[in-house]
């Protein structure tokens, strides 16, 4: 019984949101489309990218991405096409610009604050060690 359960788990494939009828016949272009889709946020279910989302809008934008690729757009051109309409928020990786410096810099700031606290703490330790 246990063996069967493990066997089925090993045989199962991950469920993709991309429907077969959305896929492009050209595997290179399809993989570009998948790559772009992973960088675009689904605006209906805001934690997911459109590649993994089942929302109607995600499906529409997946189709749009493929249409633009077939028309000859570069990956960057497709991303900026969607970004122009939905804003920076639609990109899973927010762009680095003055408004997002704090966002990108916060981990570094916290790291340096940690160094500072550690330095203060170590200085206060009694000389000669434990």
């Amino acid at each position: 019984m246990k063996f069967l359960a493990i066997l089925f788990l090993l045989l199962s494939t991950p469920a993709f949101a991309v429907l077969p009828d959305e896929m492009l016949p050209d595997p290179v272009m399809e993989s570009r489309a998948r790559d772009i889709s992973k960088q675009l946020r689904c605006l209906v279910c805001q934690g997911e990218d459109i590649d993994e989302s089942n929302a109607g809008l995600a499906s529409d934008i997946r189709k749009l991405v493929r249409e633009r690729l077939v028309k000859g757009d570069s990956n960057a051109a497709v991303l900026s096409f969607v970004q122009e309409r939905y804003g920076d928020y639609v990109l899973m990786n927010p762009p680095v610009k003055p408004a997002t410096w704090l966002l990108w810099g916060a981990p570094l700031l916290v790291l340096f604050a940690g160094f500072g606290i550690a330095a203060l703490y170590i200085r206060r330790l009694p000389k000669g060690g434990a």
Partner: protein
Amino acid sequence: MNARAFIPLAIFAVIAVLFAVPLLQGKDPAILPSAMIGKPVPLFELAPAVGDQKLTTALMLDEGKPFLVNFFASWCVTCKDEQRVLADFSDKTGIAVYGVNYKDTKDAAGKWLARHGNPFRATGFDGTGRVAIDFGVYGVPETFLVDGAGIIRYKHVGALRREDMDTIFAPLLEKLK
């Protein structure tokens, strides 16, 4: 008592304030700012959802006056409440309201408009949702205020209430005149 004992309390107080401020402002964080504000209204041409007047950008810009574009669907539960609100606002201010029927069927849209009121000067049928994507729409209802030169000035996400018209749309429209 040692002042250090208050450090956890102080940290808690800071975090509590950080959470309390957005909660008390009552803003829905899921409502996103529109990237389309300040940009020209997208160019499109749609077959009518009802009647026989096609909905085109040229038609909307023809008068050179501000107008509203409302994205609606018969399957959208909150949309029906705003039909009356839109009609009354249009009557009061004379503003033209155009409707884009989002991912619907013409048959369902026609029946729905007959039942809940049709505030639109013209409607367009956007069965694929492609025009909605050009507007940066991510759900219905959404309503855009466009000025006479065709620049998008404001977007409202969700059903329009009378107070939204009085406190947001009326003052914006006044400024555009």
